[in-house]
């Protein structure tokens, strides 16, 4: 079969809603785009541990500390599901990690903002994980089998992340005036960066059309962003919080919340590596990788010695 016929057959499988598995034929570009997207997603989970990890030692109670530890551990797990799924496309773990450490690969820009107070932990769970759920629920239907299966697993765990965040948001919004100020301040700082998580407008998103054609995504950036806004405006108002957007208003006709324009200069600036925490995040990952090296070596050596003594005994 020639390349063109293979492409056609592949597209037909996608259109039929079939899942593509690692050993199936796929266009080079499908493999390349998925490798890029899935490894970015994996990196986001791993880098995403840093802003929240920053607050583990200063959690206000043992209950909150256990919850946060567990959430951050989940993010590590999500990173591992996704690294494994990425590997099925034929790129080694080592290469994917090298790409992150040497800044050839990106991760979600949201993690390049600092967590300035404990209220940020609450708002990240509510807004950032809330946005992630909307994106990942769609990706659970993705055409690539291993990606889709990893997403199903992640979505199940992500709802705990959002709920613990919203519970904290509600508690602080109902607390002392200081707590109320703290949570409102965190919402003011995180609202716009969270809206940016869904990426550029459809017209400015070169990858979108192709990813939709291939069944990797089934909704556009703007559609996902709208469903995020509709859900979270409601949740903000329920607990008496304001959102920092004077243009926010409900459109009776469409049934959707209309919102103001995102500061795209800020978005591209952070994507290009000039956000408040870009340097710090990459350095933290490099340090962790370097400091973990002796552990990887020691475990390998331990395994080797155990194998040797087993061989000797038999």
């Amino acid at each position, binding site marked *: 079969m020639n390349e063109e016929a293979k492409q056609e057959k592949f597209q037909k499988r996608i259109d039929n809603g079939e899942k593509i598995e690692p050993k199936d034929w796929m266009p080079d570009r499908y493999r390349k785009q998925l490798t890029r997207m899935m490894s970015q997603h994996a990196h986001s989970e791993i880098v995403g541990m840093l802003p929240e990890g920053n607050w583990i030692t200063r959690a206000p109670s043992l209950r909150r500390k256990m919850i946060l530890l567990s959430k951050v551990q989940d993010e590590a797990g999500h990173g591992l599901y996704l690294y494994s799924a990425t590997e099925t496309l034929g790129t*080694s773990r080592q290469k994917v990690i090298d790409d992150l450490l040497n800044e050839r690969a990106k991760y979600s820009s949201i993690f390049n903002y600092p967590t300035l107070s404990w209220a940020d932990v609450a708002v990240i769970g509510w807004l950032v994980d809330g946005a992630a759920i909307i994106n990942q629920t769609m990706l659970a239907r993705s055409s690539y089998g291993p990606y889709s299966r990893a997403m199903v697993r992640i979505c199940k765990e992500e709802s705990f992340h959002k709920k613990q965040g919203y519970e904290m948001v509600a508690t602080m919004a109902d607390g002392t005036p200081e707590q109320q100020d703290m949570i409102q301040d965190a919402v003011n700082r995180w609202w716009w960066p969270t809206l940016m998580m869904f990426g550029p407008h459809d017209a400015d998103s070169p990858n979108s059309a192709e990813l939709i054609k291939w069944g990797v995504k089934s909704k556009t950036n703007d559609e996902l962003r709208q469903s995020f806004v509709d859900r979270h405006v409601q949740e903000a108002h329920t607990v008496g919080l304001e959102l920092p957007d004077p243009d926010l208003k409900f459109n009776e006709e469409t049934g959707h919340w209309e919102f103001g324009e995102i500061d795209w200069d800020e978005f591209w600036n952070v994507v290009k590596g000039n956000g408040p925490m870009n340097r710090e995040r990459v350095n933290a990952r490099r340090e962790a990788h370097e400091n973990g090296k002796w552990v990887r070596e020691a475990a390998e050596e331990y*395994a080797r010695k155990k194998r040797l003594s087993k061989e000797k005994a038999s």
Partner: protein
Amino acid sequence: MSEKNDTESNDTQWPLWEVFTQPKDGKPHEHAGSLHAPDAEMALENARDVYSRRNEATSIWVVPSDQITASSPEDSGPFFDPANDKPYRHPQFYSVPRAAKRRS
């Protein structure tokens, strides 16, 4: 690691293992995903931490990925077609008297 330098080529991140979990007693083991580990024992421990943080497994198998032989998608047509022309292997192939049907 110096900036812009890739990790050393012998820093392999350990061999790859496939993980199979049994969700409940009496159920078959199912593929859960994969992970890296230096040996089988550590692969099992990693599998518990990665794939069973919420009691998703009552039993776990780990298998070195390179030890799995899989059928190839290109040959799946001729490979599976011996089953295609044998409808008599299904109960729907047979007709039985109505009276007997009603009783079952």
